[in-house]
């Protein structure tokens, strides 16, 4: 199981054709309206004010409506009115597929139930492992997916031991597997670990016992990082945060980890299972929102 969007799920199950998915997404896009556009339509805001709010969003990581209220550009009543309109005009992909005649309502219900069941996939323990952390949406998503995939692919159930925000302490162990991402947020995801958990992950991912940290073991742990980061990107895309990825790498010192210059936020979490400990860090820039 992986973190996928509903359209991908339907496609894999053969419930819709790729042309139908593309058509429904186009249709959905055409009827989903941004708050700024609605405010413009209603005559509450001018384009220049909307652009100003967008710039502020990039700087502060706040919601559009929140900034409009703070700057007294919209009254609470106006915002409420726009949100109601936006909610009513927003349709889900499922609704778009039904409206376009690619799924019946009955099919949609069945598929949504199956989708939710598959995507649930997190155990209570994995959820507990990350639920009290205060890392912001980006870091939370990375940590959530890491905990889930450690359990699912490595059979390693982890709990957080401590967390910190020190960029200089993201590589406490011998092996550091990292992967860069860029787009609405730029940053680097790092798993730092010693030989034992490294070989445990390598063996579990490769489905065979690996005894030493050789190139094959490194390839295996890099693939684990790649799956974590790729699945995280999928999940973030559902929140309209778009990131692209570079390939993962393994290095043995902090100085060799590539981190984008604008990535100024760090969250590092030490995780421990019954037998192993490791640290997962995310160094990233505040997300730009559309």
């Amino acid at each position, binding site marked *: 199981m992986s973190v996928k969007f509903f359209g991908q799920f339907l496609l894999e199950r053969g419930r819709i054709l*790729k042309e139908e*998915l593309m058509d429904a997404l186009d249709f959905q896009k055409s009827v989903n309206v941004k708050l700024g556009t609605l405010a413009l339509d209603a005559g509450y805001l001018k384009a220049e004010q909307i652009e100003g709010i967008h710039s502020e969003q990039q700087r502060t990581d706040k919601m559009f409506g929140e900034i409009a209220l703070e700057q007294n550009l919209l009254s609470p009543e106006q915002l409420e009115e726009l949100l109601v309109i936006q909610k009513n005009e927003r349709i889900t992909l499922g609704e778009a597929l039904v409206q376009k005649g690619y799924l019946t309502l009955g099919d949609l219900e069945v598929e949504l139930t199956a989708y939710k069941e598959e995507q649930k996939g997190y155990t209570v323990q994995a959820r507990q492992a990350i639920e009290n952390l205060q890392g912001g949406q980006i870091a939370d998503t990375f940590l959530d997916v890491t905990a889930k995939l450690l359990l699912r692919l490595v059979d390693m159930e982890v709990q957080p031991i401590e967390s910190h925000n020190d960029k200089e302490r993201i590589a406490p162990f011998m092996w550091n597997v990292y992967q860069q991402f860029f787009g609405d947020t730029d940053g680097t995801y790092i798993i730092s670990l010693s030989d034992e958990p490294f070989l445990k992950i390598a063996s579990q991912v490769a489905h065979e016992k690996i005894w030493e940290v050789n190139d094959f073991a490194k390839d295996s742990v890099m693939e684990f990082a790649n*799956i974590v980061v790729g699945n995280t990107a999928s999940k973030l895309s559902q929140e309209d945060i778009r990131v692209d990825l570079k390939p993962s790498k393994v290095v043995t010192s902090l100085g060799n980890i590539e981190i984008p210059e604008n990535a100024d936020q760090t969250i590092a979490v030490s995780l421990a299972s019954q037998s192993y400990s490791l640290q997962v860090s995310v160094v990233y820039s505040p997300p730009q929102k559309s």
Partner: protein
Amino acid sequence: MSEGKVRILAVDDSLVTLKILKKTLKDTEFEVVGEVTSGEEGLVKFDELKPDLVLLDIIMPGMDGIQTLENLVEKDPNVKAVMVSSMGAKEKVMESLEKGAKNFVMKPYEKGTLIEVLKKVLNEG
């Protein structure tokens, strides 16, 4: 090589992934007849092997999976390419499909899901 099997070219920069793929498809109607770790090599092998299906990872050093796909479609507009990647962001899935991929399977995948998708793509004509 077994007679009558569906011949697959796999392009993925991870040797582990290629090994798992071969294990996954063992004893099925599919056979990995070529495996390469870069898009550039994939294009060469495609000409050489003329496979029935091509499986493409997306995130690879050098030419990525989507660029490789574009090149493959240029060589053969009817190429049956399936993306097999952990990078399932909505935009990447859609970009792949728009550029000619027949389907998209996300890692980690279940064996049954992969085989069903491959069968479906094969039977789409």
